[in-house]
């Protein structure tokens, strides 16, 4: 890390003045994003704790709630997100190799997949509104089918806790998706303008890290919310 004031003249426009060289800048950006993802883990962690405690206490209601949300839409959405992760990974690769057109195409596909995910999520939420499964005064879960081995009727109060967590968790995940789509629109714009090169593609890379993280959160939300108990009824 040799530093000299003259070096300032030699670097490209993407190197910011306070860094010694491009490597330092990229390492800093990457570490920054990883640290941010660590905070995100703790952010979702608060909800996972709530989920853990209530699922243990109110298993029947959680199972019943889980059966009532559409597993097909959930599975399709998982697949959509995994596909988008693939396109992001390929996009970073395209940036590494300096293939501008490919990069722009892949980023656009990612955005479309992200929007498809949000659309399907919207359909699911709409269903829940229609079915009066949104916590609050008009909540009514009497139509929920009881899971097998369950003991007795569904407690409407506890069922609301499941749906509270469902809406909080999927809602905040969707918010992250929306932010992700926003970031990717920027990335696409700058990729189209040709700002990224094999020497400088850090924004694509750390934007990709964010997208993958949001994918991972969903990878956990899917079994936790949709697959609690799907055993066939006796």
């Amino acid at each position: 890390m040799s530093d000299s004031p003259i070096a300032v003249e030699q670097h490209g426009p993407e190197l910011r003045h306070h860094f010694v060289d491009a490597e330092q800048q990229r390492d800093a950006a990457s570490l920054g994003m990883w640290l941010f993802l660590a905070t995100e883990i703790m952010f979702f962690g608060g909800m996972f704790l709530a989920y853990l405690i209530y699922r243990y206490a109110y298993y029947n209601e959680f199972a019943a709630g889980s059966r009532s949300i559409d597993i097909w839409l959930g599975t399709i959405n998982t697949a959509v997100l995994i596909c988008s992760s693939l396109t992001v990974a390929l996009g970073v690769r395209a940036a590494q190799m300096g293939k501008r057109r490919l990069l722009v195409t892949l980023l656009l596909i990612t955005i479309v997949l992200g929007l498809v995910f949000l659309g399907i999520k919207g359909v699911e939420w709409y269903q829940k509104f229609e079915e009066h499964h949104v916590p609050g005064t008009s909540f009514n879960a009497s139509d929920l089918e009881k899971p097998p081995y369950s003991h007795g009727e569904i407690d409407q109060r506890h069922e609301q806790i499941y749906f509270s967590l469902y809406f909080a968790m999927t809602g905040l995940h969707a918010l992250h998706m929306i932010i992700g789509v926003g970031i990717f629109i920027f990335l696409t714009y700058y990729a189209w303008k040709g700002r990224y090169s094999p020497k400088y593609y850090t924004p694509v890379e750390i934007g990709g890290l964010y997208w993958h993280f949001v994918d991972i959160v969903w990878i956990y939300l899917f079994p936790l919310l949709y697959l609690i108990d799907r055993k066939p009824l006796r």
Partner: protein
Amino acid sequence: MATVAVTAERENYLNQEYGIRSWLLTTDHKRIALLYLASITFFFFVGGFFALLIRLELLTPAGDLVQADTYNKLFSMHGQVMIFFFLIPSIPAVLGNFLVPLMIGAKDLAFPRINLLSWYLYIIAGTIYVHCIVTGGVDTGWTFYTPFSTAFSNTRVIEAGIAIFIAGFSSILTGLNFVVTIHRMRAPGMTWSRLPLFIWAMYATSIIQLLGTPVLAITLLLVVFERAFNLGIFDPTRGGDPLLFQHLFWFYSHPAVYIMILPAMAVESEVVACFTRKRIFGYNFVAMSSIAIAVFGFLVWAHHMFTAGISLYSALIFSILSYLVAVPSAIKVFNWTATMYKGSISFTTPMLYAFGFIGLFTMGGLTGLFLAALGIDVHVHDTYFVIAHFHYIMVGGAVMGYLGGLHFWWPKISGRMYPEGWGRLAALLVFAGFNLTFFPQFILGYMGMPRRYWQYPPEFQVLNVLSTAGSTILAVGYVLPMIYFLWSMRYGKIANDNPWDAAGLEWKTSSPPPTFNFEEAPEVTWEAYNYDEIPAPAEVPVER
């Protein structure tokens, strides 16, 4: 330095550009530090004003100065303003922002624009909170305990929650910036073992900000959702557990105490080393104790819940873990004291604050032992004993550290000396006023006076009057520095680059530093606190 003509003033970060724009759009960490300084000073006096009203109300046993609801809002907003808008950003965002790049020989923080963003987030949060104050305030206590905050309070809880949520993100981004900067931006030769202890403590603080704050963010968000959208995660009428909120809240809010006190410890290490002219005794232990506090600090949160209805067994676990975190704090106090041994001690204002800090922090820490002892905590929990304890840590510790640090680095920040005589007077006033305010509260607490009481049985009056008397002295002690700091910006004696003959990279550049901190990129070839290599001045250059 006296020969330097004013006209020949060197170019520095203050005079390089002028105008509002040059400040509001700056990415210079030093200017952002000053932006923070101005904004947190505002909130400090807002919170202080609430505190004075609280003390005035408690002058008499009957609730006669303000209404009960007003009083509840006063202590709630006092707590929220002081914690989220003053103490947490205080040392990290002002002194840390200013000093971290200087101390490690960097041109700026790793992400200057994120640094500015973090100030803007703070300002947005502050604006929302001020709006909340002027449109009715919030009365949940600073702790937002459910179900009171979610279902029973009819004040502006959502607004306050969102403001603190945003302020939390400001704090996260500051911490993130520091960690990346300390890892990636050190000057050649600045190895980990050569880092000033200030940096070590700031690093530990940042870890807590990064890993703790998001949990508070999600907790407050869930409270907001519960109020706004009728979700039922903490709602006991739907089978929710109000203690879950407390677990989540204290998971952040106990470590948050260390976000406030670790930076103050950071300042003390620098000040004590400089004014004893010695390397800090046991450098490695002091550095590692910062990290230990950051880690152990996360293991003890439920000691705020011993009477809340947690299980007996988990109370035992959290009690024993609480004693673990006391050890690294004790190590620090012992090491500072040992540093004074065979030193060459001068009694400047920063050193007076350091003496005050060590004394008050020791008392605050020792009373922490009382609270961690399960049997005693049952009696004193939620009484004035707790109030006194955490004010000894947060005001006696964190604010003393902050003021001490501000005096110590004021010549570097402003290029001017503050008036030393007034400085010492203010330090003594703060110390005396603080003890008079808060020591009686220990007794009140053990006598059984609960906290957050608008009116109280008459037998508690004498001690409350003492406390109120002390608070007025404290107020004078706080207003004085503000006046003479402002005065010194124009009339103070011009400071030379290293007025204290202190070790450390920040003193090797000019005062105030140029925009990119160093004329020539520094290369570190010396150990931290090499006071043996710096000739001690015969007398401390002070203005009388």
